[in-house]
């Protein structure tokens, strides 16, 4: 019989029975939904009480274009937003910076000043819609802009629900939008968490991402292990500031992927939830049950999709949604079938949204909590996954802990090695991809012409730059300069940088100016190039 392995590496048996779950202690390892250790889910009634939030990742061109796509999705029943920013914004470069040439408004919307954020959220009440901001290196500044827009709209601070990603460690490992060296980058992460915990109690000031590390090539168990290590690193940062764990831990959230083998994904989340609960309660002494809860967005994972016969990706998306539902996602976002080619079309976005709605409303996956609990296979897999995750966490500790492993590049090298192994398995066919390495159709190569490609408009950059110049001309320049000087001074000192950043944002300082004010003090990250 052909050997089959989980993406995590361990073998899968053809049949599971009671002997495979003999070590599982119901009270200790599984328990009831909504109760420690939350293996079965963080809420008692899960989707019977409230379906998962649907949050497609959107953003392109100017803030105005993005604003109309937001409204399009909300008109079709999407209840929350997930904002994509262009690369210059993510890296703190103004739209007229030489290094931004060709990148303005391309992979997300361009933001230069508070005026752009005002336009992006015009007509969207920020005290009623929850918004994820996919921003990391510049999370402090972009979130400050978001808070400033909410304030201008008259939204009460305790009604504002936003989730800036603010996970810089995974950027160093996998996604690349780092700016400053590791230590000052971590300071900014902590500043945003501390500020939000104090002033915006319903915001989720960090979203720890295993997702991007998995997309960069690591295994399922590594995705969870690295995510838990990163979360622990942020908790330690806050504890080092003398902030009690229960003051901020309830607002820590997660962002993971669920593409791959459905049951393995479910096991990954079940094991991850109980490991996180044990870590927060045991290692960090959290007393508030909300601090123990692994609240997560479960996304697709564009790497699950293939370019051949792109409509098949719609089917893959449906399986991802099913895996996410069976895994107990709080929020879901799916990649779109055209994502391997282009910025998603409105039609592709709508299909992804409809896929989640069909899963929630029609499939029955949401009818009862953790429906796979008690299955010999899924419980055994959950235990195996837990063991594997703990092993991967121990490996990170042997590298000197997650921060050191990232500084030296050892973790990045491990992720690249796994990506290469995965690619070899695709070439050998060990990991099957229908239409790409098995059941390859004659017309597979022709299919790409059927995808509607996003027509990137070079006028976007021109419009954005013109607006930026207008703001620079019309603002009170001395107020902006004063705020930026204040920011540099604070960066040299130890205060929370959110306050001077907010001051600069309100004075319509540009993102590039804010980034530079800190770069002058912190310097820039030097990537440890290892592969």
């Amino acid at each position, binding site marked *: 019989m052909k050997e089959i392995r989980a993406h995590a590496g361990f073998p899968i048996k053809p049949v599971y029975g009671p002997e495979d779950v003999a070590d599982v202690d119901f009270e200790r390892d599984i328990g009831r939904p909504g109760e420690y250790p939350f293996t079965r889910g963080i809420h008692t009634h899960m989707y019977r009480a409230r379906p998962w939030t649907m949050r497609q990742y959107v953003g392109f061109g100017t803030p105005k274009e993005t604003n109309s796509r937001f409204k399009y999705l909300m008109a079709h029943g999407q209840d929350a937003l997930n904002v994509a920013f262009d690369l210059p914004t993510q890296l703190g470069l103004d739209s007229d910076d030489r290094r931004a040439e060709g990148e303005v408004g391309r992979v997300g919307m361009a933001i230069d000043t508070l005026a752009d954020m005002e336009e992006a959220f015009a007509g969207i009440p920020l005290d009623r819609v929850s918004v994820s901001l996919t921003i990391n290196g510049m999370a402090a500044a972009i979130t400050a802009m978001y808070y400033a827009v909410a304030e201008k709209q008259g939204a009460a601070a305790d009604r504002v629900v936003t989730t800036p990603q603010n996970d810089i460690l995974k950027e160093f490992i996998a996604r690349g939008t780092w700016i400053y060296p590791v230590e000052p980058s971590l300071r900014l992460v902590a500043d945003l968490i501390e500020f939000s915990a104090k002033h915006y109690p319903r915001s989720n000031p960090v979203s720890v991402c295993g997702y991007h590390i998995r997309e960069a*090539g690591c295994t399922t168990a590594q995705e969870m292990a690295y995510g838990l290590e990163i979360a622990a690193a942020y908790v330690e940062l806050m504890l080092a500031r003398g902030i009690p764990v229960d003051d901020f831990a309830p607002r820590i959230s997660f962002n993971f992927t669920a593409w791959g083998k459905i049951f393995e994904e479910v096991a990954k989340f079940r094991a991850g939830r109980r490991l996180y609960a044990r870590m927060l309660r045991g290692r960090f002494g959290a007393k508030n049950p909300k601090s123990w809860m692994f609240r997560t967005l479960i996304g697709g994972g564009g790497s699950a999709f293939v370019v051949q016969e792109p409509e098949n990706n719609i089917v893959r998306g449906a399986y991802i949604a099913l895996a996410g539902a069976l895994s107990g996602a709080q929020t879901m976002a799916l990649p779109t079938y055209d994502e391997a080619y282009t910025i998603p079309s409105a039609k592709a976005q709508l299909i992804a949204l409809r896929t989640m709605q069909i899963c929630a409303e029609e499939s029955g996956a949401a009818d009862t909590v953790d429906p796979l609990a008690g299955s010999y296979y899924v419980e055994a897999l959950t235990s195996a996954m837990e063991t594997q995750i703990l092993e991967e966490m121990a490996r990170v500790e042997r590298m000197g802990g997650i921060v050191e492993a990232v500084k030296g590049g050892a973790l990045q090298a491990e992720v690249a090695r796994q990506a290469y192994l995965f690619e070899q398995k*695709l070439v050998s066919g060990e990991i099957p991809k229908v239409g790409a390495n098995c059941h390859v159709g004659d017309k597979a190569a022709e299919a790409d012409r059927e995808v509607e490609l996003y027509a990137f408009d070079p006028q976007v950059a021109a419009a954005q730059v013109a607006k930026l110049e207008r703001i620079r001309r019309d603002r009170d320049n001395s107020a902006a300069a004063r705020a930026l000087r204040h920011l540099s001074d604070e960066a040299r000192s130890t205060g929370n940088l959110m306050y001077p950043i907010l001051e600069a944002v309100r004075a319509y300082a540009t993102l590039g100016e804010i980034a530079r004010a800190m770069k002058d003090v912190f310097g820039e990250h030097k990537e440890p190039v290892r592969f």
Partner: protein
Amino acid sequence: MKVLIAKPGLDGHDRGAKVVALALRDAGVEVVYSGLKRTPDEIVQEAIQEDVDVIGLSVLSGAHLLLSCRVIEGLRAYGAEEIKVVVGGIIPPRDVAELRKLGVAHVFPMGTPLPEIIKVFTKEASER
């Protein structure tokens, strides 16, 4: 034979670049990897200094036309046009011909199998 795998522009996705670099190394090719976010000029300088035969550009942000053009112009400006340039990443079909017109020797759009990429690199270098 020596290859520079480079990431021009602001795009931070390096999975493809690193996988190709590792596969080339396994195929006995000497590989230099630029790291993320290099400007076209930095890439040209590194290619000349390292005396490589081929530059492999990896771009997933959509800015491939501009960035490839800048690298090729840079090589010309330094009189190093004997260094071949190949490009991989999220390259829509309509841009393949455009890239070839700019002087890109080979394009590897999404879904190109790894062995095919390695074969082209080794062929380009041996023809030089």
